[in-house]
């Protein structure tokens, strides 16, 4: 079964990225990634740029609406995602708890949609 770990950061965590990537806390992320790979559960994942760099697009009544910033105006914002291959949601929650992002912000665990539906999307 595949699960998405969606990592939400607080503004303070996003600020960490401004320090030329020398913040020692980055070591925790590198270690976490390593543990996922060594455990053989890592499928894919990546980090996103800070929310201010986002642009949100909608099309309504044939008109384009473009808006600066992220989709949702909340304090905690999506900062990255990880896809894991795991036997159960219990295991996914365990990995979510180990995620450095869980200590300050939040990590949402959600199963990927069922194979049949995904094939419907991707053909």
């Amino acid at each position: 079964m595949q699960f998405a770990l969606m990592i939400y950061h607080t503004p303070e965590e996003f600020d960490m990225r401004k320090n030329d990537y020398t913040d020692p806390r980055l070591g925790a992320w590198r270690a976490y990634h390593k543990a996922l790979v060594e455990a053989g559960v890592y499928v894919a994942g990546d980090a996103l740029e800070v929310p201010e760099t986002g642009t949100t697009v909608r099309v309504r009544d044939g008109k384009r609406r473009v808006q600066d910033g992220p989709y949702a105006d909340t304090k905690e914002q999506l900062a990255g995602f990880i896809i894991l291959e795991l036997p159960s949601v219990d295991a996914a929650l365990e990995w979510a708890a180990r995620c450095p992002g869980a200590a300050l912000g939040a990590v949402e665990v959600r199963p990927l949609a069922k194979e049949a539906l995904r094939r419907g999307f991707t053909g």
Partner: protein
Amino acid sequence: MIDTVNGSHQEDSHRVVERVARESYGRLVAYLSVNTRDLASAEDALSNALVSALTHWPQEGVPQNPEAWLLTAARHSLIDGIRHQQVVLAGEPALKFLTKTSTENTENTLSPQFPDERLKLLFVCAHPAIDPEMHTPLMLQTVLGLDAARIAQAFLIAPKTMGQRLVRAKTKIRSGGIPFEIPQEHELPERLDAVLEAIYAAFGIGWDDMAGADHRGRDLAEEALWLARVLLQLMPGQAEVQGLLALMLHCEARRSARRGPDGRYIPLSEQDPKQWSPPLIEEAERHLSEAFRQGGPGRFQLEAAIQSVHAERARSGRIDWAAIVLFYDQLLKISPALGTRCGYAAAVAEASGTEAGLAALESIDPDAVSNYQPYWAVRAHLLQRLGKTPEAADAYDRAIGLAEDPAVREFLLRKRG
């Protein structure tokens, strides 16, 4: 004047409801379900009784015997429930039992003599036919009255899922014929061990060490200690029950020493013994020596003995690692769990040198430890001591990546350098 009286009256009765609920919950659930095996109904009836108490007691005053009052109210609720269900065949014996006993006037007697059936309840919760993962959650709910959401937090499970699993386990108890009884002599050690394991699982601290091993704080230490004390009260003189209690008390004694003023993680060997709690250590030692007097120490007594040697540092200023290795030797013979093997390796490193410790660690099957944080923490620590810097950094990364406690993660990041 009257208002003030009523005000404090109301406050008092709320507090009494809370206290009685805490002290009597398990006794009442056990007694109400011992014949029907229907835990869910017993819990529902008791919670109806508690709600009823919250409305009646402030107006009518707290009854002389609050527990008996709750029992009567819960019985009435159970009878109503059974009548509503109109379960003619299945419900009849239960109904007879309930109506028979509920006619006894228990409201005003000072000590209602209803038997304490909690021991049977504890054995039911940890019955081999029930998923071991559910032993502890069942105990916490039926004996202590913790709600599914709170239990879910502690066990890192979605609250809705925990609720469903608890319902399923209770259905199995009711319909699967799991008897409410104290196991026979020949199966007692094994069955008791399951009960002890379940209590210890609530405690959460797997292994208190020097290298920065992550202990998954279940935040239920108080509940676990309470359960162990209840169990000891119900089975006085059981050495392993005393061993478990001693082990948890030793760990609990160090709670405040485990964190610096800034929230920093402090490993056991660097803790200031002055921060340990002398009364808890004293209580632990008393239970342990009583248990040891019975001879043939079991797993929990040996684990407690290891913690006792650490506690001795408060007096002697040193750690007798040779003694710790000896206790681990015995422990490995009965319980070669991963945590024990890692603890043994760490102790050997102190007693006979880092190389010997690393060799002991490397004798563990690598597949078994790939996600086991304490293994990597000890390994990193030992490799660093041997000056094997790149290998140590690698092991530190694994330990950091598998850690859940942010303070432990920070500690390991600092050590990794």
